[in-house]
């Protein structure tokens, strides 16, 4: 290839010396067609050479574009992870329906207080098979210098921890099960004794799937807390929340909508939701808190990524103006140069997209290690498709700007090298 360039340069010098346009009747055009098939073949032959010859710089371009795309994937993944994590806990509550204080529609951070007589009244509604009471209370958990908001969920016949990842479930009085990420943050292991709600509890086990972005869950047995409260060992607010939710099992064949309507009619102090609805309400609550900043950050990430991709590809073309001048000198048409530039942009973009996926996995793992309460899920199919399409579009737009610069390149520039 270098020999070819040298030969073309020699011919070009001769043409210029004779006062002929540099590429109007470049004698190599025929040779190029004969040797390589067509000028497009020249482009295709040149492209890998240009990219590989400057491998270090090309690799950095790919990395830079990959970083920008990974940024978008990861930021979008943070939101997707928050939503999934927020939704998953309430969605997996046992029971077809959940009753809570009228006006309350969430589990996340909610304080629901039901009258004690709500339980038998709900149980009497036709279609209700069984009722499982839950007490829920957001409190502050502190250990040494560490403080964390947590949500105490005290259960009776159902609604306890679904997944124990260390130790065991609650079997004895004065035991609790703590969310595994919360436990790690506070350096707690199963079997440890912790001061909690002004009382000493033994951590029987650590639970998985109980983290959320606001307050991870801590399980206790309902009767144990009530006993402790009656003995004067627990704060008064616990008594106010001793009945927060009712998990409702339905008779086989009963219509959940009809049962729900009847419960709300006959017990006006409660509102009834399905676990899936509570999950959606919790997601809406997270969006209420964090929706605006997350949207702004994601929008900024898209803008930054777009500009970085465009500027990187544009800079790459500027870097190759010398080579493009050689191409012009050997008779390449503007369309050929345009194809070369766009081809390079798309090639770099596609390579970068693959690298971005790997980088996004790395960033997700890093976040999972450093802040496990925030799962990052950057691989939703829609997100991937959107990112890929956007990136190729940006690459085309950026290369359109670069093409304007490339096609007007003076073939004489080759002598400036």
């Amino acid at each position, binding site marked *: 290839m270098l020999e070819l360039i040298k030969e073309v340069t020699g011919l070009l010098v001769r043409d210029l010396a004779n006062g002929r346009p540099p590429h109007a009747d470049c004698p190599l055009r025929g040779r190029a067609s004969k040797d390589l098939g067509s000028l497009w073949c020249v482009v295709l032959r040149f492209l890998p050479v240009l990219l590989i010859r400057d491998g270090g*710089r090309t690799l*950095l*371009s790919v*990395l*830079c574009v990959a*970083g*920008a795309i*990974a*940024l978008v994937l*990861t*930021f979008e993944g*943070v939101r997707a992870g*928050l939503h999934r994590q927020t939704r998953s806990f309430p969605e997996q509550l046992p029971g077809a329906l959940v009753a809570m204080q009228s*006006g309350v529609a969430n589990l996340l*951070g909610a*304080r629901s207080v039901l009258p004690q007589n709500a339980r038998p009244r709900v149980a009497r509604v036709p279609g209700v098979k069984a009722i499982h009471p839950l007490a829920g209370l*957001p*409190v*502050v958990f*502190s250990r040494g210098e560490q*403080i*964390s*908001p947590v949500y105490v969920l005290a259960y009776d016949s159902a609604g306890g921890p679904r997944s124990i990842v260390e130790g065991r479930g609650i079997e004895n009085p004065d035991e609790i099960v703590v969310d595994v990420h919360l436990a790690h943050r506070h350096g707690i292991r199963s079997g440890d004794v912790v001061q909690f709600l*002004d009382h000493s509890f033994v951590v029987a086990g650590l639970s998985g799937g109980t983290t959320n*972005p*606001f*307050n991870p869950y801590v399980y206790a047995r309902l009767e144990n807390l009530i006993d402790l409260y009656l003995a004067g060992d627990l*704060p*008064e*607010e616990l008594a106010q929340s001793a009945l927060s939710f009712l998990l409702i099992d339905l008779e086989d064949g009963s219509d959940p909508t009809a049962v729900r309507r009847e419960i709300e009619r006959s017990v006006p102090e409660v509102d009834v939701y399905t676990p899936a609805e509570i999950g959606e309400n919790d997601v809406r*609550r*997270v969006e*209420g*808190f*964090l929706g*605006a*900043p997350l949207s*702004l*950050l994601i929008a*900024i*990430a898209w*803008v*930054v990524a777009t*500009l*970085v991709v465009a*500027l*990187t590809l*544009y*800079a*790459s073309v*500027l*870097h190759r103006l010398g080579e493009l001048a050689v191409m012009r000198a050997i008779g390449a048409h503007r369309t050929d140069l345009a194809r070369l530039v766009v081809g390079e942009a798309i090639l770099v973009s596609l390579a970068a997209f693959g690298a971005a996926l790997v980088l996004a996995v790395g*960033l997700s793992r*890093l*976040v999972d290690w*450093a*802040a496990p309460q*925030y799962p990052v899920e950057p691989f939703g199919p829609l997100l991937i498709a959107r990112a890929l399409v956007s990136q190729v579009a940006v690459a085309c737009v950026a290369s359109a700007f670069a093409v304007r*610069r490339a096609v007007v390149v003076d073939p004489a520039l080759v002598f400036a*090298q």
Partner: protein
Amino acid sequence: MILRWTLRNVFAERGSLLAATGGIAVSLLLVLVLDGMFAGEAERIVAFLRDSGADVWVMQPGVANVHMASSLVRADLVADVSAVSGVAAVTPILYVSGFVSAGGREWFSYIVGRHADDELGAPRRMAVGAPSARPGEAIIPDVVAKESGIGVGDAVSFLGRDFRVAGISSGTYSMANSVTFASYEDLADLLSAPNGASYLLVKAANGVDAKTLAERIETAVSGVDALPAGELIDRDRRLALQMGVDVIRVMTWIGSLVAALVVAFTVYSAITTRTRELAVAKSLGAPARSLHGAVVLHAIVLLSLGYGAAGAMAIALREVVLRALPQIALRYTASTLSILALVATTLALVAAIVPARRVARVDPALVFRR
């Protein structure tokens, strides 16, 4: 001589200069905005505590927070605390979390009940209306009013009761910790706590240290804990930021990593385009020191322009966000600006020195063979 030549060349290639400066600017902007958002919310979260005027907070034993906490003490302890040496004023408040319904939307808020004529705990700045709520009235944050489309005289509801908006306060909104004010009487009624107070806000007399005063109060008054405001603010900030807001910090790490990559690449790329010129300069006798100087100057010029552009864009963005998304606070701190400048300069110099060293090692005769 070579430095002047470098400067002339840097500014001669406007396309390259724009691409390099733009890449650096948007990367630094990303970090500034991410950190600014976190810093802004971290300040807003504790705005009520900071602006309350209290030097010491007195609360139920075992409680050491305001955010997420529930505290109840006897209201008649006001007299006991007032009698402690070094206390200038005591204000009891009731404090509870709830959802404020306004204009068809719901806002999580802490609701503070205080007597209209008390000295401490009032909103520091009012956008409009009265600074204290009378029975049946509420004072809501300006962001809630704007986003809900309501004003003074309109109705809001919380804790199952309707209130009339008597005032709109500034600086009392945060994503995790907004504050709505009501009358002490209304909140005592709603909480069934006519003789209780959640917290006692204590102002220290001139020259009395808050920590000393807190210790004196704990010694003199039984059945309460007392914390200096600074300590309480620190604990509350740490706690409140854990409730979702520190996701922004996680995103700041990610953004910073990517920004570092882009800054390093941009500078490296810009310097490598001048490798041949530097090789020519070397072949003409320029010493390695001059070549390194030229490279460093090039990197510093790019970084300075990028940093300046990022700063200008960040300020413009803050104004846009202030108007379009008032629930978000962007706060650019001097420490962040300094750290960012330092880290970016280090990165740029490292990225620039790599091609410079390559040029310094190159055989000067090589340039004539190219």
